[in-house]
């Protein structure tokens, strides 16, 4: 299933890889992921029989539009990095589909992917291990040209020096080695390499988490400027919610291989709907000593993330959620658009009316978990849910229908229109 605009997108990408990437008009779907899964097999014994699988990514759907930044957040082990490697096709998906500019790239081989490598690039987390210590900066940043057989106007060296300047490095450092640079400078080298071939999509996996605060801000601003100048599309994977909020237009929150909430930045941070999103945001330490004793707003999650080898049944968050009821244990909530541009997978969302109001008996685990949540927070959340329900009074039926429709037509144009 392709959106109409995609047809010409593919052609231009093949023809004009070396030109500036303005061809995918802003707002068109650049990347589309449906039902994406990656299970890493666990093998044991002499015969290396498969005894299980780590369900790192377990069925996720999202789209990235040209020119926007999608932020992906979640705790370690939630599958966000695996997701990044799947969409750049550094890993082969177990199931599902990845479409780039309408072209199915899910099972392309190395040679099939090579032309696409110009358009999809990656920035890695660790600037120490992602640069070859035996190569000079010139070789590292120039490698994409040599590999792709592209001869930029004025020669590779001149182009590399221009790129170094673009990312704020001294072009005279062309012949230096990575160890001569600091962490922030190395990350800039990684960015220069990623930008060499004018990619359309840049996937950045924790681009700033290894950097110092002051340097982090420099790199965040650099990514921002480059996006405006070159019309780049970013998928930025990070665990730092404040950084993600700063850089993203839309944000996907992942938990145990699933997207639990996908919304535009404003809605997500103003009124998070998934309890996990809410807990995650409340956990961020606020740099304001006057709020030091406002401990009550914090939602502490009990224990650790369950193992992705055998994720909990139903809603994966139900073992740690303070709102979990029987339905959460048995039925997996679908990711549906409850509010325009805010998709949530939850039976009992926050800041919205309850999706399963008939189910009111808390699970024992939920009762324990709610002991860690201040009464004020619980009361406030119940209040907003009631208020939203009252607002939608009467139209509940209609809205539910609309949601169901949208879900069915999620791939069609209707949903695209709705999001605008």
């Amino acid at each position, binding site marked *: 299933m392709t959106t109409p605009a995609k047809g010409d997108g593919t052609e231009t990408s093949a023809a004009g890889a070396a030109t500036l990437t303005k061809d995918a008009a802003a707002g068109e779907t650049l990347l589309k992921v449906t039902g994406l899964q990656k299970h890493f097999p666990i093998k044991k014994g002499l015969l290396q029989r498969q005894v299980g699988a780590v369900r790192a990514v377990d069925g996720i759907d999202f789209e990235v539009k040209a020119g926007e930044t999608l932020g992906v957040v979640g705790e370690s082990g939630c599958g966000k990095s695996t997701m990044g490697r799947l969409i750049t096709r550094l890993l082969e998906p177990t199931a599902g589909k990845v479409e780039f500019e309408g072209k199915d790239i899910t099972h392309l081989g190395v040679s099939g992917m090579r032309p696409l490598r110009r358009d999809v690039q990656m920035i890695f987390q660790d600037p120490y291990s992602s640069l070859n210590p035996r190569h000079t900066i010139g070789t590292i940043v120039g490698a994409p040209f040599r590999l792709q057989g592209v001869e930029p106007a004025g020669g590779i060296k001149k182009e590399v020096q221009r790129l170094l300047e673009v990312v704020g490095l001294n072009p005279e450092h062309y012949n230096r080695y990575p160890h001569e640079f600091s962490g922030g400078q190395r990350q800039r080298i990684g960015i220069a390499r990623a930008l060499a071939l004018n990619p359309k999509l840049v996937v950045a996996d924790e681009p700033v988490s290894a950097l110092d605060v002051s340097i982090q801000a420099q790199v965040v601003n650099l990514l921002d400027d480059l996006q405006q100048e070159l019309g780049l599309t970013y998928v930025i994977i990070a665990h730092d919610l404040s950084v993600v909020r700063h850089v993203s237009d839309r944000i996907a929150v992942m938990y145990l291989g699933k997207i639990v909430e996908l919304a535009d*930045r404003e809605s997500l941070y103003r009124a998070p709907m998934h309890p996990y999103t809410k807990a995650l945001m409340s956990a961020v330490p606020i740099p304001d000593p006057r709020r030091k004793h406002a401990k009550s707003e914090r939602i502490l999650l009990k224990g650790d993330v369950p193992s992705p080898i055998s994720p909990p049944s139903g809603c994966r968050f139900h073992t740690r959620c303070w709102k979990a009821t029987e339905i959460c244990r048995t039925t997996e909530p679908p990711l549906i658009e409850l509010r325009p541009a805010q998709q949530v997978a939850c039976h009992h969302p926050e800041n919205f009316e309850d999706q399963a109001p008939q189910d009111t008996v808390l699970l024992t685990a939920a009762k324990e978990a709610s002991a860690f949540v201040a009464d004020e927070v619980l009361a406030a959340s119940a209040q907003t849910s009631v208020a939203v329900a009252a607002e939608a009074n009467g139209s509940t039926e209609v809205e539910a229908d609309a949601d169901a429709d949208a879900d069915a037509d999620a791939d069609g144009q209707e949903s695209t229109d709705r999001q605008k």
Partner: protein
Amino acid sequence: MTELSKTGAALGEPTGTSPAPTSFLEVRDLKVHFPTDDGLVKSVDGLSFQLEKGKTLGIVGESGSGKSVTSLGIMGLHTAGQYGKRKAQISGEIWLNGTELLSADPDHVRKLRGRDMAMIFQDPLSALHPYYTIGHQIVEAYRIHHKVDKKTAKRRAVEMLDRVGIPQPDKRVDSYPHEFSGGMRQRAMIAMSLVNNPELLIADEPTTALDVTVQAQILDLIRDLQKEFGSAVIIITHDLGVVAELADDILVMYGGRCVERGPAEKVFYEPRHPYTWGLLGSMPRLDREQQERLIPVKGSPPSLINVPSGCAFNPRCPYADVPKDNVTRTVRPELSEVGSRHWAACHMTQEQRERIWTEEIAPKL
């Protein structure tokens, strides 16, 4: 720069003539220098502060600003031990509860270490021994300082694991570090540090390796334990959010020196050093409306071998030319009092800094 002799010095009496302080912990003009082939690395170059019991001091700064070296210095982990010579040159005074540690007998410091002062390290996986069970390691820490049998010590270990929130502590006490998740390892390490009820706890980036939800749990735990045991806590971090949560006082380090020190509220709301402004401007904040752009500090942290002359921050400081006569590049600024219990080391006048902060910096944050 004098290298103090570590042997034979009487307890309590420092090499200097200054009297013993009244504070629980007082560091005076601490210098830790490492001679290397490339030159002398001045990791800590004249640091002073006090800390009372029951209070928390937050030390913030970038990597290489000397935060961790300071904490290892207080713990006495730089000094030449019996297992060979470490090359650190240490001078200054560290007073803990009336005892000067740098001139004290290493055996005496060793008795204090782990009992009166303990440390939580950044990376629990490398700080725990992989061959021994968690319980074994906690029991060891306890029995070194308490003459008790193994059973009693193990009971104590279980009790501590329970206190730091490890489920089924009687079973988990026999687990190996690799069987614990990151957050649980950090809890186990906190249990180990606190097993002897230390009066001084140094936490060096205790939550940096952890997820934000686990970080929240650990910060809560440290706060509760401090209340319970009344210890003095030094928390070292680069995350201003973490210090704001925990610290009563904040010390900002840059290039091995303190550039600003004061009560947490003052440092956040009336900072008087351009580097502190830079740190505050670099940080995306969840509690504010979306900032248009971050205001980073330009350039990168200085080399500790060639610390810039004058004010170490001058090459990165946007206001380096405000004071007259190029003084920022020639004279090193000393800490001067800018408010009650609040010091900053900057050549700009108090009025200039107040004006720049209120007119240029604060509105943009």
